[in-house]
């Protein structure tokens, strides 16, 4: 299976993602933001980082970069596009997924492990996963998911909420919401569920001795689902 990771100026999780994808059997290519064409891919990943130094709004400059037109076309034709952290911020700025990511509620940069509850397994990303609660890592300053009332109703009606912040038992409560996100939302899909944006980093959970194993479960399962 072929994957592509886009590198923007200021991306810093692109190589971690490359390591993770290769570890679980993807043939990965790094793609520069100034390229016009995507290589043939089964999965495109927009990685975490601080593209363009977070100028204007996080992800806004990257969303207008050259390669993004091919990424948008790829997504609109049904291709799998996953945005992690800054990649999620880029996705909302392109309009591929609804909403925006505001500054964290308590104005702190948050860097810690969190638990997330899967809401919807009828999609390529989470289908067949034998766990409902996963432990991932977050590291962000602008992860406070916000959308309008109408958008919230629409994403609920279309089952577009991918994951919620929760505790280790999967309880979704205010006290487990690290950044003030509306309804504890940590990740969402587009309507068709081929585009996934999420703040947590699965690529930081792929080594039992260093972190945890839930990222490994996620990537192994994703590869099997794409095959």
């Amino acid at each position, binding site marked *: 299976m072929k994957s592509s990771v886009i590198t923007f100026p200021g991306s810093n999780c692109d190589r971690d993602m490359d390591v993770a994808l290769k570890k679980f059997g993807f043939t990965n290519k790094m793609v520069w933001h100034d390229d016009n064409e995507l290589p043939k891919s089964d999965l495109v990943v927009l990685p975490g980082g601080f593209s363009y130094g977070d100028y*204007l*709004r996080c992800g*806004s400059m990257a969303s*207008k970069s050259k390669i993004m037109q091919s990424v948008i076309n790829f997504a609109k034709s049904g291709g799998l596009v996953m945005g992690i952290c800054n990649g999620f911020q880029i996705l909302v*700025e392109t309009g591929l997924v*609804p*909403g*925006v990511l*505001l*500054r*964290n*509620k*308590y*104005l702190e940069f948050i860097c810690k492990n969190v638990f997330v509850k899967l809401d919807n397994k009828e999609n390529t990303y989470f289908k067949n996963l034998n766990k409902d609660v996963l432990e991932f890592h977050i590291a962000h300053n602008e992860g*406070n998911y*916000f*959308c*309008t009332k109408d*958008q919230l109703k629409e994403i609920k009606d279309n089952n577009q909420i991918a994951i919620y912040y929760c505790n280790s038992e999967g309880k979704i409560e205010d006290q487990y919401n690290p950044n*003030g996100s509306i309804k504890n939302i940590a990740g969402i899909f587009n309507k068709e569920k081929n585009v996934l944006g999420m703040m947590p980093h699965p690529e930081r959970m792929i080594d039992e001795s260093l972190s945890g194993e839930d990222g490994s479960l996620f990537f192994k399962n994703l590869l099997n689902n794409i095959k």
Partner: protein
Amino acid sequence: MKVSAIITLKKDVLDPQGKVIHQALDGMGFENISEVRQGKYFEIDVNENDPSKAKAIVEDMCKKLLANLVIENFKIIETQ
């Protein structure tokens, strides 16, 4: 001609930075404030002499890049 754009957060969007600035001002003795909201200001020199055309160009910029209309409003002011 120069055209300015002011970007502000919509009313129902939380502005934690504005809140903290409000608290700081309060602490400094500026007690008669009911709210502070933080925004952005752009000054754009457009190569266009017709004011309405220049404003229309900046309006297009606001819609496509400078503002995120999910959370922000914009106002265009002709400065010169």
